[in-house]
């Protein structure tokens, strides 16, 4: 298979082509801006050898390829967010040509405009919370061996009860952190906890949340995160960002 296709990164407010000239797309390709009504569609040309249906299926199963393309996609969207308001697309919107991309975007024009209205002047921050064993609390395992089977069972039941309470307390604490940060943000979303195999972090993730924050409100949001982090064991609360507003770019949300 050969030939080329159009890859769509984001839908934006009208943007001058020259303001994206510093950015490079997937594989280092230059970016173009298609005008669709009052929207800009930021695209680049990709090869069908890589993004045709079959090669793409194969490539998506290759974590190395995926990691590279995901970072390149993200870099474009990050760059756009610095010059305009952009609704980031999910990776993999590939069209036979620019015209077809424009037609698809035109159909969602109204919804895209509404989303841009929500995103103007705002940015996304991520906050994750992990279960961290407090170092100061030694395990309360009695040194002696249980004197009887009954004693063993009693101890065992006590351990299990403590664990259940701990888990519930941690979950409630994660809820509290989410609510606290929700109160200093415009919108808030909770995502599934990340898989330890992918994140490389073995500690259980209690909270994986995204917050849409006014740029002007950034210091207040950061102070709130710091306050919450300081009240908890080191490393329990982690902040990431700013991100392009991926988590708030969905059209089917109320």
């Amino acid at each position: 298979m050969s030939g080329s296709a159009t890859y769509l990164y984001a839908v934006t407010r009208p943007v001058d082509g020259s303001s994206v000239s510093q950015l490079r797309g997937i594989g280092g390709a230059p970016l173009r801006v298609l005008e669709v009504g009052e929207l800009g569609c930021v695209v680049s040309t990709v090869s069908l050898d890589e993004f045709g249906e079959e090669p793409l299926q194969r490539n998506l199963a290759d974590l190395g390829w995926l990691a590279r393309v995901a970072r390149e996609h993200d870099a474009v969207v990050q760059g756009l967010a610095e010059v305009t308001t952009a609704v980031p697309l999910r990776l993999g919107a590939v069209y036979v040509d620019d015209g077809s991309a424009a037609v698809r975007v035109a159909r969602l024009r109204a919804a895209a405009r509404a989303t841009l209205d929500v995103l103007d002047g705002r940015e996304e921050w991520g906050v994750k919370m992990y279960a961290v064993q407090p170092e100061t609390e030694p395990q309360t395992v009695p040194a002696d061996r249980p004197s009887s089977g009954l004693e063993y069972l009693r101890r065992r039941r006590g351990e299990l009860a403590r664990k259940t309470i701990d888990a519930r307390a941690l979950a409630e604490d994660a809820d509290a952190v989410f609510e606290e940060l929700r109160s200093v943000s415009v919108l808030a979303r909770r995502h599934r906890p990340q898989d330890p195999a992918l994140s490389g972090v073995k500690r259980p993730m209690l909270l994986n949340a995204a917050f849409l924050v006014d740029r002007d409100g950034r210091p207040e949001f950061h102070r709130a995160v710091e306050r919450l982090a300081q009240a908890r064991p080191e490393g329990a609360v982690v902040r990431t960002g700013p991100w392009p507003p991926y988590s708030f770019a969905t059209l089917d949300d109320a």
Partner: protein
Amino acid sequence: MTGIAPRNESDGLADVLERVLDKGLVIAGDIQVNLLDIELLTIKIRLLVASVDKAKEMGIDWWEHDPTLSSGERNLVEENERLRRRLGELETASEAEP
């Protein structure tokens, strides 16, 4: 445990993949990676990472406790069905838009 990538880097990749693959606006493409496949990608990546060698190397057995993985393909088929229905709804909704 040695040989694991620096936390920042691996952590960052998980964050990027999560956003780029699972969040973000969906506008149907001509070349159908299919929304389905992209949605299923999270699961694919999990399967990929769960390859036996990798798992041994990492010294973990988390897949045994993961209902999505341990119940195998049947779950993927169900998930696929669910996503297909959802896609149908979304397409109907976007066609209907003026």
